[in-house]
Every structure is written in structure tokens, then in C-alpha cells.
């Protein structure tokens, strides 16, 4: 017992002076990499399909996102479309794109991309309807949002 006590006495305290520095470093990393979530999902979070030939979306500020997924209420069937903070119909898509365009500078409009985040269970009909609406108003750049992976078998059963 006495031996143990002796050793404890001899040990110097670990300096915690550099602890704030480490924490600050981490803090800055997360501050820089953080993006605040702008939209709350009203639909069930879409389970994105997997694809291997993906391209990263450049110019995040020029991307407008359309979500397609199931309703949170399981009794309601069919695909729901969400833009910004509300659930809309297919015919409302053009007005959404126009409002997005109004927020950007005129010369940036042609670089605007529409990202479609659809659930892999969603039906192609809904997606094609949206594509047709986008064609009508000349929003031609689209991206089917996917997660990157090489095993595509989870996309279909």
C-alpha cells in the first residue's frame, strides 16, 4: 500500500494547456465543413439508389432540389413531391423553378441544375412527369441524385 502511494506522488500532472488548442482545431474544421440544413423533410427521407458512374455536383449555390418519396403517413400511398418546405403537385414545379431563378443573377441561370432526390421505390412515371415539366420551361440541366457504390443490386429486387 505504501509503495503504491509513493509512486502516485512522484507522477507529474499532465498538462492540459494544449487541450483548448486541439478542441479549437476540431471546432474550426467542423465550422468550415458545416452546412446548415435548410429544408425540413415533410416526406419520408428518400432512400437514394446506388450508382457507380456518378458526377459530383459543382456550384452548390446553383442547385435546386426536388425531393420525391413516400408520405410520412403510411396510410397515404403514392409518391409525394417536396420542394423547399412544402409538398407540391407536379404542375407546381415550373413556378418553383421560376422562383429559384429569380433569386439568382441572370447570367447564372443557364448554369442552374435541378437535382432530383427520389426514393428508389418511387415510380418512374412521377420522375418523367417532372422531367417533362422541366423541359417545358427550359430547365434542361438535371442530375439524378444517387449515392456512390458499385453494388447496384439493392436498387431493384
Amino acid at each position, binding site marked *: 500500500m505504501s509503495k503504491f502511494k509513493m509512486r502516485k506522488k512522484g507522477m507529474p500532472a499532465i498538462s*492540459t494547456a494544449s*487541450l*483548448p488548442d486541439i*478542441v*479549437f482545431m*476540431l*471546432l474550426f474544421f*467542423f*465550422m468550415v*465543413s*458545416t*452546412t*446548415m*440544413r435548410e429544408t425540413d423533410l415533410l416526406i419520408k427521407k428518400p432512400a437514394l*439508389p446506388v*450508382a*457507380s*458512374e*456518378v*458526377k*459530383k*455536383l459543382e456550384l*452548390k449555390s446553383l*442547385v435546386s*432540389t426536388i425531393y*420525391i418519396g413516400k408520405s410520412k403517413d403510411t396510410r397515404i400511398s403514392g409518391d409525394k413531391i417536396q420542394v423547399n418546405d412544402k409538398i407540391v403537385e407536379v404542375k407546381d414545379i415550373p413556378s418553383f423553378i421560376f422562383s429559384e431563378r429569380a433569386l439568382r443573377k441572370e447570367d447564372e441561370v443557364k448554369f442552374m*441544375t435541378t*437535382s*432530383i432526390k*427520389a*426514393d*428508389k*421505390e*418511387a*415510380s*418512374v*412515371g412521377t*420522375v*418523367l412527369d417532372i*422531367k417533362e415539366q*422541366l*423541359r*417545358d420551361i*427550359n*430547365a*434542361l*440541366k*438535371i*442530375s*439524378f*441524385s*444517387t*449515392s*456512390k457504390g458499385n453494388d*447496384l443490386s*439493392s*436498387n*431493384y*429486387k
Partner: protein
Amino acid sequence: MARRDIGEINAGSMADIAFLLLIFFLVTTTMDVDSGIARKLPEKTDVQSDVIVKEKNVMDIVVNRNNQLLVENEYVKVTDVKRLAIKFIDNGGGFGTPVDGKPGEPCDYCEGDKDPNSSDHPSKAIISLQSDRGTSYGMYISIQNEIEGAYNELRNTLSKKLYGRTYDELLNDYKDNPSKSLQDKIDDLKNKYPQIITEPEPIK
């Protein structure tokens, strides 16, 4: 003017404050990079022009509501689409589309079988993807991915042959330092294997 000695400020709580901020940013951070399959939609025109396309220059992909696939009237699996698409695009059995009034030339960079019953030239090869309204989106994306993969592989192979580097590497280089010569190379590759994908009205 007597200067009063100010005691040292205790910095012990600094770590606590930093931790608090750290935890806040940790929670709010989302690090997903949005990535996906990029597509350019065809422009809408009022004029409906009838273009006559030979049957052999079209690769028909049909997918029904049970996620079953037909390619050229044969039942196939999704994983076969890439191979079939490459074979079809790279066939080069005839002459390309006429450019600026000059007659089309045979494909001198194709490595296909030169089958007269398949596509004439990559610039003429059209992939038609007909889906059903009830097809699942995951299936649709898988097919799009396979088609994209076919084009990428063809461009990579050709790029490797011409410039010693793959198309992906060229694109990456271009992102780092965009130069005119690189742009020309990329455009050339895109022109040699243009993506011609058509999506007819879905089956109701």
C-alpha cells in the same frame, strides 16, 4: 499614476466554451456531397420533324412495371446492358453522319465487330430507353448508370489509345487547370462517342 497589478485571467474555462461550440457544429454538420448521374434534357421544339432512323441504328431497351428488361426483344439482366450497349455503339458497321456537307466516314477508331446488322457509327447509334410508369426509380437509375458506364468505358479506351490517359483523368486534370488543349481533347472524345439517348413516352 499607480499601475494596478491585474491578476491573470483564468483560461481554464476556455476549453469548456470551445467544447460547447464544437458539439454544436458537430451536431449541425452534414457532410454529404450531392452527387448523381447528370443528364441534359432535350430542348422542346414546336416543329416536329420526322427523322428517318434505320432500325439497326437503334438499341431498344424496354423495361416493364415488374422491372423486367428487354433489349432488342431479348430478355436480359441489368448487368448485361453495359456489355450490350458497348457492343452496339462500338460496332461501326457503316458510315457516320455527314458533317458540313461532306459524306460520312467509316468509324476508324471503333473496335467492334463491324456487323452490318448493328449500328453504323457511334454518331448514329441511338439508345432508346422505354420505361413503364410503374417501373421503380431504382431500376431506371440502374439502367441509366449502365448506359453512362458504357459511354465512359468507350471514351476511356479511346482516350487511352490516343493520349495515353483515360477520359476520367483528362476530366480531373481539366478541373484542376482548365486549358484549351485539354478542352479540345475532351470535346473530341465527346464528339467521337456522343451520348444519344432517347426516352419515348412511358407505357401507361
